């Protein structure tokens, strides 16, 4: 498989990372080298193998749906790049 510039641009959109043409070319080379390596897996027949999603075999525990953290708005907003004391502020979305 070969990853071309068009695919790089597509992945760049999906992952919300802007990539200029020069970077895209370099990325294509790197990705192809990584995919050559990854495709070694195709040597294996895994038809009847169950996928392993987690090494933890126990059932995840349930907890009571209860608010534990209270009055943390100020603490949380402190790290925001832009806010108006009550909310995070982002570029205008609705005209």
């Amino acid at each position, binding site marked *: 498989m070969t*990853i071309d510039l068009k*695919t*790089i641009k597509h*992945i*760049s959109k*999906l*992952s*919300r*990372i*802007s*990539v200029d043409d020069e970077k895209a070319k370099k*990325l294509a080379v*790197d*990705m192809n*080298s*990584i995919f050559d*390596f*990854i*495709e*070694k*897996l*195709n*040597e*294996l027949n*895994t038809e009847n*193998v*169950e*996928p*392993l*999603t*987690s*090494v*933890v075999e*126990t059932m*995840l*525990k349930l*907890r009571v749906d209860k608010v534990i953290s209270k009055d*943390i708005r100020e*603490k*949380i907003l*402190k*790290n*925001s*790049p*832009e806010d108006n004391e009550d909310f*995070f502020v*982002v*570029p*205008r*979305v609705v005209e």
Partner: protein
Amino acid sequence: MSEITSQTLTELVENIKNKNISSEETTKAFIKRGEKSKDLNVYITQDFSSALNKAKDFDKNPNFELKLPGIPIAVKDLFCTNKVKTTAGSKILSNFIPPYESTVTQNIWNEGGILLGKLNCDEFAMGSSNETSFFGNAQSPIDKGLVPGGSSGGSASALAANLTPITIGTDTGGSIRQPASFTGTVGLKPTYGSCSRYGIVAFASSLDQAGPMSKNVKDCALLQEIISTYDEKDSTSIDFKRNEYSKDLTSNIKGKKIGIPKEYRVDGMPKEIEDLWTKGIEYAKVCGAEIVDISLPHTNYALPAYYIVAPAEASSNLARYDGVKYGYRSKGENLIDMYEKTRSEGFGDEVKRRIMLGTYVLSSGYYDAYYLKAQKVRKLIKDDFDEAYKKVDAILTPSTPSAAFKIGEKNNDPVSMYLNDIFTVPVNLAGLPAISIPAGLDVKGYPLGLQIIGKAFDEQNILNIAYAMEEKIEFKNKITDWWIK
């Protein structure tokens, strides 16, 4: 009494308890050495004045019952520390001040540990040489221009350079064991679910584990017993009976069966690694262990499977960095433009490469071919270990396929850097515990490590084997203080 900063944790605890030294003296000594060691670039954030105040407070009202009585400790900058900047080695978090504390670090402070500062690491723990850090690469104390390994490179370097008596790292594919091996220190990756992931900046959630790094096995056992706790805040934390690892530590490993997997004898392995392994087998025999040849047939597929699973999980974990709630933000013409510029400018090249790789393998039409396939291979790798553990109690391998390399030496091709983790990655995929101990030096005097892999939850057993072998190996690290003017 030897110099404060060159003492092991066990010695420091003893000396503080016997009032030979105070917490303040100890903390001052590590701060002083830290200030003289700027060239190593191990600190991203120093918290020295606060550390000194905490040490003075400890001395005023000492509690010698604690396991880390007034002991200063620097930690990897991947652990969120309340009100102390936490960057994960990234520009995108370069101004992030967590309003909460990770469980692992909280456990350390609860036992009397004092935060010295936050240590350099590869960006979001993605790297094997500490070169992907936004804050520049940390240097190895072993030699000028040498990488300390990664991703916990700052941790390993600070420990080997005597800037902290112990430290903690995280290990997703080898990020504790490889830098430990490169710097002549001890590093343990615990069983998945042993140490809480709460408050650790996430990389690949099904693989990430925090673990101790130390100058010897006993210190490692003590720190592991402190940081390993069941935690409700981490849904994959496991509630199992934990040993008092340091108390239960014994070098009597008579009759233990240790497996030697033939698949780890890879093509092009340097002779000195081969020799180290042979020497390790001899040491294990001298300790009374029985050596058994075993096979882990899918070993060669671990690294390719890892480079699907880890980037896939990373791409979803790192989706949260969008410039809205915290971290770096770039100005954009609209919301989408702001996202794309923020992420493009905020992440480094390796992180972007992995996010995009992960995005691709999870994207519509490719999920089965890559991600599902990798998870099936992951099962085969775990089955290999399960099969082997019917015959043996632990497995002995080299920690890395080579000694530490020079800064810049492996930057041209990402795959050649990835190959560093060939011996460490299978353990993460299977969720097992493994420890790296220093076992020798190469011709240049660079440290080499041996890895002991255990059954799940069998940390005590691999610590015991490591302890027994450490006695026989009598490793001495060569630290010349080259960076101190």
